[in-house]
């Protein structure tokens, strides 16, 4: 019963996402093939992983789990339903003091179970005018723990205009999701170097970076 409801809710969310944003995936550095990946993306809206999910081919969609903050997604019944049942999110506790399990361990467990992941290495939604917040170190630790999994930079464009912070009526605007060339942790690469490389790879996919 709950699974049927989750399936219907998922289909409805996908339909709404398509209707409002007419979102299209651009596979600019990697093909939409069915291999295990970690998609790391910029984060400006709660709808971010919905858009990535929408442009993934169906088969890949069901093996790809978003990584999200449990503080937000466990707060109320509807959010729990969407976070857990519809998107099967890997819910991590972002509060270092209260958490009982390590986020990187949770993510590697999900990878070992065969899932692909969607992660937002900025750690929180970007509400600033800058295009990208500094990455948290989780992406590095994840890359270190499972060096064979490709890390795919994923730029989500325009969704922040669809629903700016503090507004609740979305404006229908066309969004794109651009997938860039995958990267992997190099032998002996230091944390700051790797994170800087990952940030640059993601920023390079933003249309504004290409325009200027």
């Amino acid at each position, binding site marked *: 019963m709950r699974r049927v409801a989750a399936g219907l809710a998922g289909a409805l969310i996908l339909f709404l996402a398509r209707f409002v944003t*007419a979102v*299209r995936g651009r596979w600019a550095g990697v093909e939409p093939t069915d291999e295990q990946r970690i998609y790391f993306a910029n984060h400006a809206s709660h709808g971010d992983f919905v858009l990535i999910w929408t442009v993934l081919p169906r088969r890949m969609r069901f093996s790809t789990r978003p990584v999200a903050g449990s503080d937000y997604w466990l707060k109320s019944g509807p959010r729990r339903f969407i976070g857990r049942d519809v998107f099967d999110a890997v819910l991590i506790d972002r509060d270092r003091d209260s958490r009982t399990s390590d986020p990187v361990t949770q993510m590697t467990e999900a990878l070992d179970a065969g899932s692909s992941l969607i992660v937002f290495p900025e750690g929180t939604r970007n509400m600033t005018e800058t295009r990208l917040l500094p990455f948290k170190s989780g992406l590095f630790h994840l890359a270190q723990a499972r060096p064979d999994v490709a890390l795919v930079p994923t730029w989500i464009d*325009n969704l922040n205009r669809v629903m*700016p912070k503090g507004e609740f*009526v979305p*404006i*229908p*605007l066309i969004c794109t999701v651009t997938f860039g060339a995958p990267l992997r942790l190099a032998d002996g690469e230091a944390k700051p170097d790797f994170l800087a490389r990952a940030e640059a790879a993601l920023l390079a996919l933003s249309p504004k970076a290409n325009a200027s």
Partner: protein
Amino acid sequence: MTMPHPDLVAVLAGILGVLVLASAIGFVLQRKLSPDGSNAVVENLNDRIRAWWVMVVLMGLALIGGKTGVTLLFGFCSFAALREFITLTDTRRADHWALAAAFFVVLPVQYYLIWIEWYGLYSIFIPVYAFLLMPIIAATRGDTDHFLIRIAEVQWALMICVFATSHVPALLSLDIAGYEGRNVLLIAFLVIVVQISDVLQYVWGKLLGRTKIAPKLSPSKTVEGFVGGALSATAVGAGLSWMTPFTPLQAAFLALVIVLMGFFGGLVMSAIKRDRGVKDWGNLIAGHGGFIDRLDSVVFSAPIFFHLVRYGWSAV
């Protein structure tokens, strides 16, 4: 549901025939010139033909569906076009409510007015009421940066994507003596002439196009293509007079007006695209770009065609 008018059935059958022929030609060309998908022109042609099928099926269903079908179809076209247009403008946070009003109030109200055939209001609702309302909503948010440009962009988007487009279903409300129950054929006439003109301009341009009309705006448009396309589309329009309330000569004149407005509409919309630094309005239709890329000629000719027919032939 009542049976579609025999003339409409004939028109749709004719279009299907043309499409089947086009598909066959596309298939042969692909086997001969582009078996491995390497010939860009042939691949683009086949993409276009496939998209044509979808458009013709949708359009055919809408026409058979009568007023409901046509109003819904063009309401959705307006929505998709407005979405493309606003995407390319530099809106700001402060425009949020003005934009929400454009999508969720102005657009539905305009189509509702078309639906209830309130000519006196739908012909001024956007140019007068929305024109004054939009800047008021935006001004209350207090952001004055580029205010005039932002408001002008939204107003343009509404005029092009909603006001002008809605004049296609408005053709159904015209009351023409001796033409009762056949108004959907006016829409078919408008759309066929516009689209045939686009195709013929392309074909004439490819065959003997030399002199570019506006190289900065639209590098593929040539004088030869334009003249050849306009004249042959006018001839096609005259040949279609049997489905209209017009004599062949009148049909030719209206077709020429439609073709000219469509052509210059395309130029104007190209100028906006160049200004925004994009090649297509969107990427929803393979081989055709976005909705506006397909609609631009219809949009510019629809209100003019509507009013010419209204003044010249309609009883109201």
